């Protein structure tokens, strides 16, 4: 039995795939490294500048220019390799030869038979382990902007090449074909993204192209361990597209087999708007890339000391952080994943450890601190939450105090008092309520005697009145408690 079937997750087959079939998916993910400069020259590695401003003889491939390897890019790639549990090897750069106008030298410097990182794995949130075949270093190409026509190269009146991106360092992470559903593929990419951002080697934004995902998709009867003809689906720009593209492609393959046909090996382009993939270049007339070792660079030697140093530099991985935060906060998986994705899990743990209510910590982080926590410290955040849970601040007030602390730091008690947020005692609140009842006797009766629906409606009305009278300073929980007590008496 092959490795591929060993990882089949029961029930992971897409709901819309006819019974008896399963999907086999391998992903190729390109991650743009966030180094200051490009892979082989000193040009800035930056996104969104005027076309052809971040270029030099080397990244333009001018005659006579030579590459000089960026050590930082290598370091980032190797750290990512270790974070993906890969073997990090001495490696050799190779040239991948093909003609395309976005490729200044008409070859891409990549790695072929001796890549930097080999045989690692990613553990998904549900515990499934997905093997990684390799994670190699290569240079990005430039960008073509097609004028006239429909924006694609075919039918364009002209094309303009922007080489700002040419030579930007990439790591291509190639999974084994061990993913068995679109949902798993999504989970794999999310997890990979968390790891990439945790080791801080890339922004990993699919929308901006700093993370690009191609999916190799095939199908087979459940129970078989064969690998059937696959299609490589490109132009996937979001996690949602990834799921849709895989499910579409799998379904297309099943339909072909059902009709007695078979898919042909080819590259296909996902059209998000149309919700379908379109045939691209057939692999039969695919180019032979004529790989050979890049003679302008020397082999990259990795020592045991390098590995030790890399491992020591790695932060705690998202899977471990997920477990840690789950244990301490009791929050839902979605909330935990969101916090990890935002990189706020460490701050959450620190605040909980400083003695804050874990639920409130998570709620504030998710709802009120999505833009980051600015000047807020874990200790002052915890103090603020203690005031809130102690009834000294209403949730509305807490939000306001928090915003102030994010903007300029400071002590929550001092901020609250400066804003005039004095804790309202029960007596004061009751006398306000009495005044409102006196003005609305019928409504109060309906609140006391009405059915659940009526009661709920009136509760909203009275709460609103109290908030209005207190300018929102009343604590919502205290108001609810008071209403309940008073209507029952």
């Amino acid at each position: 039995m092959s490795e591929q079937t060993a990882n089949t997750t029961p029930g992971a087959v897409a709901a819309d795939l006819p019974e008896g079939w399963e999907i086999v998916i391998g992903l190729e993910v390109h991650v743009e490294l966030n180094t200051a400069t490009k892979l082989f020259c000193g040009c800035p590695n930056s996104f969104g500048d005027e076309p052809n401003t971040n270029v030099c003889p080397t990244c333009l491939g001018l005659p006579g220019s030579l590459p000089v390897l960026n050590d930082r890019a290598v370091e980032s790639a190797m750290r990512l390799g270790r974070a993906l549990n890969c073997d990090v090897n001495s490696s050799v750069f190779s040239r991948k030869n093909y003609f395309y106008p976005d490729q200044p030298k008409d070859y891409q410097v990549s790695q072929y038979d001796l890549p930097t990182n080999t045989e690692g794995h990613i553990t998904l949130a549900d515990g499934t382990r997905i093997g990684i075949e390799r994670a190699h270093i290569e240079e990005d190409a430039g960008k073509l902007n097609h004028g006239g026509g429909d924006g694609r190269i075919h039918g364009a009146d002209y094309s303009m090449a922007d080489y700002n991106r040419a030579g930007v360092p990439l790591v291509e992470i190639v999974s084994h074909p061990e993913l068995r559903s679109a949902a798993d593929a999504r989970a794999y990419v999310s997890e990979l993204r968390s790891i990439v951002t945790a080791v801080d080697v890339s922004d990993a934004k699919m929308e901006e192209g700093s993370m690009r995902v191609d999916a190799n998709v095939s199908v087979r009867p459940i129970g078989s361990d064969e690998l059937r003809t696959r299609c490589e689906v490109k132009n996937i720009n979001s996690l949602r597209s990834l799921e849709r593209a895989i499910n579409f492609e799998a379904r297309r393959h099943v339909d072909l087999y059902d009709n007695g046909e078979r898919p042909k090996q080819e590259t296909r382009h996902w059209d998000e708007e149309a919700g379908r993939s379109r045939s691209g270049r057939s692999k039969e007339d695919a180019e032979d890339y004529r790989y050979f070792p890049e003679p302008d660079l020397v082999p990259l030697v990795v020592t045991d000391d390098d590995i030790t140093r890399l491992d020591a530099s790695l932060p705690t991985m998202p899977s471990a952080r997920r477990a840690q935060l789950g244990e301490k906060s009791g929050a839902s998986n979605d909330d935990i994943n969101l916090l990890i994705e935002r990189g706020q899990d460490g701050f959450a743990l620190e605040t909980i450890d400083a003695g804050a209510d874990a639920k409130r910590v998570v709620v504030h982080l998710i709802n009120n601190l999505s833009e980051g926590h600015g000047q807020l410290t874990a200790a002052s955040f915890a103090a603020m939450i203690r005031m809130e849970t102690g009834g000294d601040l209403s949730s509305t007030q807490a939000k306001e105090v928090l915003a102030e602390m994010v903007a300029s730091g400071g002590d929550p008690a001092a901020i609250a008092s400066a804003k005039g947020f004095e804790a309202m005692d029960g007596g004061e609140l009751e006398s306000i309520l009495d005044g409102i009842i006196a003005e609305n006797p019928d409504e109060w009766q309906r609140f006391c005697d009405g059915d659940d629906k009526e009661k709920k409606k009136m509760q909203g009305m009275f709460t609103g009145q109290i908030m209005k009278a207190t300018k929102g300073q009343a604590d919502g929980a205290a108001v609810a408690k008071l209403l309940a007590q008073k209507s029952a008496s």
Partner: protein
Amino acid sequence: MTESFQTPSATSIAAGVRDGSQSAADVIDAAIGAVEAREGELNAYNLVLADDARTAAAAIDQKIAAGETVGPLAGVPVAIKDNMCTTGVATTCSSKILEGWVPPYSATVVERLAAAGAVMVGKTNLDEFAMGSSTENSAFGPSKNPHDITKVPGGSSGGSAATVGAGAVPVSLGSDTGGSIRQPASLCGVVGVKPTYGMVSRYGLIAFASSLDQIGPFTTTVADAALVLEVIGGHDPRDSTSIPEPMPNLTEALGKGVDGLRIGIISELSGDPSLGSVEGIAPDVAARAAAAAAALEAAGASIEHVSIPSSVHGLPAYYLIAPAEASSNLARYDGVRYGLRSDGPNALAMNAASRTEGFGEEVKRRIMLGTYALTSGYYDAYYGQAQKVRTLMIDEFNAHYQNFDLLLSPTSPTTAFELDAKTADPMTMYVNDVCTIPSNLTGQPAMSVPFGVGDDGMPVGVQVLAPMMGEATMFRAAAVLEEAARV
């Protein structure tokens, strides 16, 4: 009757300019005059930079007048092979495909020469993209041998060899991928050095075969070659294959003689069938190499024949590796960013049309050969196998350098041949490189030193080969041969 020139050496020019006994302006005027006098018949230059050179010379004279320091090549006229980038000066590789391209940067060697006070007088003709052994594969017409203009100057650095051979300038630079400095040096009667791979930066040298290309000087004297190599050599962080070691002192080594050195004559290249030599080494050339060995022996070296069987396997290995790398290096000439662009209905058709129109026959032949050698399914049989031969050669040469300080052979199998004599059959042209190719494949240094003339009265060079970074020893032998050739 052709006017003949004999330039003073670079060493003496620089000394005179530095001590004020002559002006750089006068030196450059004389050099430009000689270049222009011979250019009509030699076609050694793609571009003569008379005005730029005079301006640069005036600047040097001003510096000297102002008491500023000037470099070791102050006022020395130099010619640069037209495959090295020069800021603001068209660089063509003698190819139509680079028509109109002006580099925005200079090769490291060009910068270093300028910093040393040398004055560039022009860009010299070559076989297109340095592919050839006669300078007949140039889009701008063949260069001629200064000693007999019915003959080739050799190649691919034919223009650089011809202008020094004509005595017009004392120094030029060439590039050597399979013998492209040493063979024309031999045919034009000048000194030509292919340094250790990585000693001279390739930054700004338009690549033919990156793992074999190396820049080196043509000079009229061995001492000048040592001086120029000291200026252009040494580590350059812009070339990843540059050796990160200090330059050996070569001028100091010159007078040390060869007493006690062990020198091996490569049997396979000796011209003597009884020693297992390849065919095609002309008897008059073989005789000069034997005379050179005798001269070295007379100067105290021990001489012995040594069989290095892999030396003759170099030719086929070379003609797989060099075209393979070239096929990739020359892919960038696609009409998109610079140079010639021909019309086509789409990008790929435009690429193909530009390349069809822009490249000459020999370049196309080698691109196709190299593309084939790298094709999947053939890689192991061709490129992979050639690399194995290369490793074998390195091992074998290194083993012999345990027993020998230097090796000796002819540089070229024959003296200069007639124009058009070999253009019809590429194979006869390729065989020209049999003696020079081993050093490119091993990365080891070698140089050609003029050592008399052949039966036709044309110059003959002998080749001194040395182990990696063995230039100092190599120059000791070269200096002895130069001295011996004089008497």
